[in-house]
């Protein structure tokens, strides 16, 4: 079964930090992300992942009665919003849960696992 691991987090505190502090925290956490990538690759060499730009970089498109409306994003009004995702082929949900729990962002945000329809 192919799954999407959707990474939800909140960058509110993050963007207020001084640049050096962000760089320091990022460097500190990078090895954990690289370890995760290795683990995901072991599970499925065709795993795909994308990190999305912050919420302020989003634009939302709607068509109503043939007219196009574009507003600033994000679409979701929830406190946490999607900041990245993986798609990965796995034997079962248990394995998806195990890998989701290794994503560093699971410790501050949430990982939503969704089967992919094919």
């Amino acid at each position, binding site marked *: 079964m192919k799954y999407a691991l*959707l990474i939800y987090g909140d960058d509110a505190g993050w963007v207020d930090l001084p640049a050096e502090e962000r760089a320091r*925290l990022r460097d500190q956490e990078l090895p954990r992300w690289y370890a995760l990538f290795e683990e995901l690759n072991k599970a499925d060499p065709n795993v795909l992942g*994308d*990190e999305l*730009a912050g919420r302020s970089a*989003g634009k939302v498109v709607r068509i109503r009665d043939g007219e196009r409306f574009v507003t600033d994003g994000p679409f979701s009004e*929830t406190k946490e919003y999607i900041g990245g995702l993986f798609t990965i082929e796995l034997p079962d949900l248990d394995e998806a849960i195990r890998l989701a729990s290794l994503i560093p*962002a699971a410790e501050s945000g949430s990982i939503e696992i969704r089967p992919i329809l094919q």
Partner: protein
Amino acid sequence: MKYVALIYSDEERWDALSEDERRDVYARYTAVASEMQAAGVMAGGNELASTRDATTVRVRGDETLVTDGPYAEVKEALGGFFLLECESEDEALEWAARIPAAEHGAVEVRPTHVDPEEVQL
């Protein structure tokens, strides 16, 4: 530049469609996906199962908390996405507007390139 087009729509609306209506919707998605392909902007995409089939994982301290259901109960849920390789945001927005769900739901376009200054880990 790579963009993701996140497709949000009302799941109840989809549930209420007949088989024929769903076939029509899928045909429209196939058509727009082929056009994206022909234009060389299509870099991937997936349809997600309903939020009814979602599982949410959080790690707090040493504990892994697993709950059935989506991260948040919302009226319009993420139902799928396209990855688009476009020259500009305007071009990505043009394509987003052609995704059928834009007509009743919403499509959020976000670059996948990240300013390291802003990135949250």
